[in-house]
């Protein structure tokens, strides 16, 4: 089933530190930009919502047209954001949990400066594999 998904990690300074198009729909550059624009705009809502709930997984917090934004907020206010059109909530939740684990592993790397871009290709490969698995 072809679906659209764009995954992003946004640091607490609102800097995107990782971004990936993980959908199976053939990529169009314009669309990719649009996905990022939507995720960027959703930050406003996430920012408000984050303080009203104790949940880490905020399901379908924002939407634009048929695209839905789900967010997983970490304690240090790093946000894992996913723009998707599928409704597979459980899969998304598992995806977030696994990526969270991956991200923590990255953080443990002494050479990684928290808040800077994640450039590890291993991380990228793993994230894409997880995306295929859960969505």
């Amino acid at each position, binding site marked *: 089933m072809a679906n659209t998904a764009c995954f992003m990690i946004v640091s607490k300074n609102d*800097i995107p530190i990782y971004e990936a198009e993980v959908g199976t729909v053939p990529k169009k550059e314009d669309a990719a930009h649009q996905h990022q624009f939507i995720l960027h705009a*959703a930050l406003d809502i996430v920012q408000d919502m984050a303080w009203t709930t104790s949940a880490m997984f905020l399901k379908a917090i924002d939407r*634009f047209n048929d695209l839905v934004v789900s967010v997983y907020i970490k304690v240090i206010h790093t946000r894992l954001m996913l723009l998707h059109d599928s409704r597979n909530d459980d899969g998304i939740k598992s995806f977030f949990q696994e990526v969270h684990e991956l991200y923590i592993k990255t953080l443990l790397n002494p050479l990684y400066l928290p808040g800077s871009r994640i450039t590890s290709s291993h991380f990228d490969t793993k994230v894409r594999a997880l995306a295929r698995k859960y969505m």
Partner: protein
Amino acid sequence: MEPDASIETSSMIRVAVLPIASIPPLLFQDYAAMLLRHHTVSLNSISSFYTEHQKSPFANQPWDSGSLRFKFMLGGSPPSPWEDFQSNRKILAVIGLCHCPSSPDLLSVANQFTAACKSYSSSLVQRCFAFCPGDSQLEEESCKGSNIVLFPPADRQTQEFHLQTMVQDIAASLLMEFEKWVLQAESGGTILKTPLDSQASLSSEEVIKAKKRRLGRAQKTIGDYCLLAGSPVDANAHYSTALELTRLTADFFWHAGAMEGSVCALLIDRMGQKDPVLEDEVKYRYNSVILHYRKSFIQDNAQRVSPLSFELEATLKLARFLCRYSAYSLMQDFSKEVVELLTAAADGATSLIDASDKLVVYVEIARLFGALGYHRKAAFFSRQVAQLYLQQDNKLAAISAMQVLAMTTKAYRVQSRASSEPSHDDGQTYADGRKMHHYSIVSLFESQWSTLQMVVLREILLSAVRAGDPLAAWSAAARLLRSYYPLITPAGQNGLASALANSAVRLPLGTRCGDPALPFIRLHSFPLHSSQMDIVKRNLAREDWWVGSAPSGPFIYTPFSKGEPTHGDKQELTWVVGEPVQVLVELANPCGFEVKVDSIYLSVHSNNLDAFPVSVNLPPNSSKVITLSGIPTKEGPVSIPGCIVHCFGVITEHFFKEVDNLLIGATQGLVLSDPFRSCGAAKLKNAHVPNISVVPPLPLLVSHVVGGDSSVMLYEGEIRDVWISLANAGTVPVEQAHISFSGKNQDSIVSVASETLKSALPLKPGAEVKICATLKAWQLGITDPDAASSKGVPGTLGKQVKDGSSPMLLIHYAGQLINSGEPQTGSVPPPGRRLVIPLNICVLQGLSFVKARLLSMEIPARVGETYTKLVQLESDATERVHGSERQSDRFMKIDPYRGSWGLRLLELELSNPTDVVFETSVSLDMERPNNKDSSSHCTCAEFGDPKTRIDKECTARVLIPLEHFKLPILDGSFLVKGSQNNGNTGGRSPSFSEKDIKAELNASTKSLISRIKVRWQSGRNSSGELDIKDAIQAALQASVMDVLLPDPLTFGFRLAKSSLDHSAKLISPKKSDMQVNSLGSGGSINAHDMTAMEVLVRNNTKETIKIDLSITCKDVAGENCIEGDKATVLWEGVLTGIGKEVSPLQEIRHVFSLYFLIPGEYTMSAAAVIDDANEVLRARARTRSSDEPIFCRGPPFHVRVNGTA
């Protein structure tokens, strides 16, 4: 869909405001602005204009609290098809604005106005306001009866008042018109239709339906008019009826409209009240409004017209209401509900048919998000709006798109520097920037959504190009290129470069833009003043004002300087008015095309520097360090925040700080790339801008060494005068100057004519003074000469110059103090300057000293009429002995008659390894015979003999007789140790310590050594002195006693006066006696003749000595010829065992006669045994025991006995 819709919109009377005739746009705006202020007219203010013709249908009109609201539509608006549905959409009044001076013919104005009103058929009142009419126009009759209202020329306040009155008049007229209309509508049957109602021929069923519905619709419309007339209670009554009727007829659309009106009436009625109950009521009712609008959707005409826009409008109205309400209330936050409403509206917008409706929805959504504080959401929808605009392919839409996108730049952090507020952290210094905490660095790069930023900038560029705004296009392209060059392909970079160039072509020359493009510029360094122009702070409190100012050493950091390091690294830089300064900056072009910088110069915000532009070409992917210069023009602090660059046809300002921040980000991995490193520029420590201040003009001394500034070649020990010319190249006279030395080998500067410089002060601009410095070349190091002499090449010593062993002259000079009277506290005096003149001395190995030896020599004296100096000593015996100088002492002429016994000579061996000839001469400075009582004048004894010439690569020896250094008295002080002094030591204290003795001895030795000078000369103008003090001291060390101290007794022989008849002629030609080889004339003793002789014994000590004198005479063979069997000399008088007593410093004579039997050479000598010798004598004789007799032997004297022939 209409923009800016809110619930209250239903109560607003639409008034078209039209420009009539030729009114200048600016004036139209001005008048319109005046008019717009009167958007609300209270009912009680219009009561005077209102006349009740019939019974008013608005029974419950609140005359005391209510008001009419106007919505002025500038330029009018086209009639809406939904006018019947919502009466507030009707243009109910038309106001024309006219400027009389620009349209003198009022009649034509009136005609034009009437024509303009024709298109507003729904308008009930028309007025044309004519401003500033002339006198003739005021009197004109033609406009009477028309709707033209003349505003007589008056001041603004009066005009405004006049306008207010006119608006109130209009309001009153409208109110009366509304009454008329309502009365008419209640009585007659108006048919109200909307586009929703099918336009096609109505079927009978529908006609019946429409008839049924008519009543409800009429009630709704009357309600609308009540609302417009400012009577919410009446409106509510009508709406209630309408609601009932429409519900019964299932006219959902009108039902919803009536409900909307009722909410508006509710709000107007409760104006100013804030209570949650009202809030909930509005929310509840509006939700049902939205629901009913949705219900009214009819499938069959969905293609043509749809109530969706009303549904969305209602949604937005509610959202706006909640949004406004949540802004007031702290208790309730409706933002979540607003977000939901807006999200729903956005969803609905996708199915809107009309593009402009969609546009309006997005605009409204963006505005509402913005009002909520959701700037990113607002930016997102703004961008949607811009995209819709860009889909319409026309210039106006492009301009709109550009403007909308410009609003999003803040949220996407790509705003143009021109539009962003002036950076608030200008005061932040570079030092602070360097200490910046990591997190604050991160905050500098917040929201680096580079993909989005690039997209937005690209869209701005596209829209600007389409809109034909070259400056905006340039700015967008510059931002895009500067910030995102690493993400753009070389082709894309080239495209941007050509976009920049194309935009620049359309811009007027010299256009400035706030956003810098390429190149990246960072501060490289501030070159310090050259040592020739050093500026030194002046310390007024001290005479030597330069002390303790600038660190003169080569070390910037000294471990001893305390204080906080942050303060320490803030460098101070002083520039001088009128003297060019330089700043090094580094440019980088990380892009794939060549950047041609037409001109670049320092940007000086303090306006006291004339910067000189330069032009640079930067090849692709390259960096360059260039020097930018300028001339300070005014005193005061200078701030150089960046450079002004003229590149790609536009002038931009590049700030150093931005690049510095960028580089900080690059080191933290927050920015994509460091433009300098990618160009291969060397890593540079963060250069920070020092505090620069400009001081008034200072004098400027320029120096050069007369005869060439190259190094002075000197042989070791050479003394030479160097003339240094100092010229004042400044514009201010030099008032103070002081010369000091620094560097290595300072003692090689013997003297500097600082007096000459002092006397030349004040040195006027352009004046020149020459001062003389006497230099003496130092000795080369010990290791060097070995190496050099072994090679034998003097040129190898040239390297000596480079190691900085040359001394330097430091001249501190300053101009006049400005207020020479009393120095004001707080005012900083103009600084002084320091000129460093390095004296480049190249010392070549010269005459070198090989070794020194002490030689002794014995030449027997001759007995003659002439006598030793001791005779003459006797003559001035009244003088103090040590004060008398042996003036006649011709130093090295050996008097053959006097002879010299125990003559000591210092032999110096000198070698000349150079390739020039040296001539040496030894001189003895007789200035100080001893270190006491040096009242004497300079008597420099020099050898009469010619100079010793030492050829190249030869060695030579020079002899220095040391006889003269004998002290005249044998003073006990040198020898006596302990306390056993007797009275003869004079006033010396008995507790004369050994240390002092040694010191005195050393002193006299030193004075001896210092008096020996070996001067040399080579060629015409090289002369110098050998430094051989240490060598002489070493040579003399062993026998210094012998050299310095005289024997206790001096013996001498001469012919006695009794034989005067023979020797008379010999006395007179005294000079002849001095000749060494005048043996013939000297030998005046004849054989077989009684020769009277006398022996002279002088006591050189300060006490009486008892001696036992004896005289011997030996022949050539050394046989004693007085005694024994073969005695050849007869004698008379006593020759042995003569007991004598010699008083101190006196001499005795003992006369005897000899009769030589055989002519020939004889040697006479006297000897004495000293009785009762004291300590001094023993010490001198170095006896071992006190019993040992002390034996003194005089030097031998030759006697030549002539035959009697």
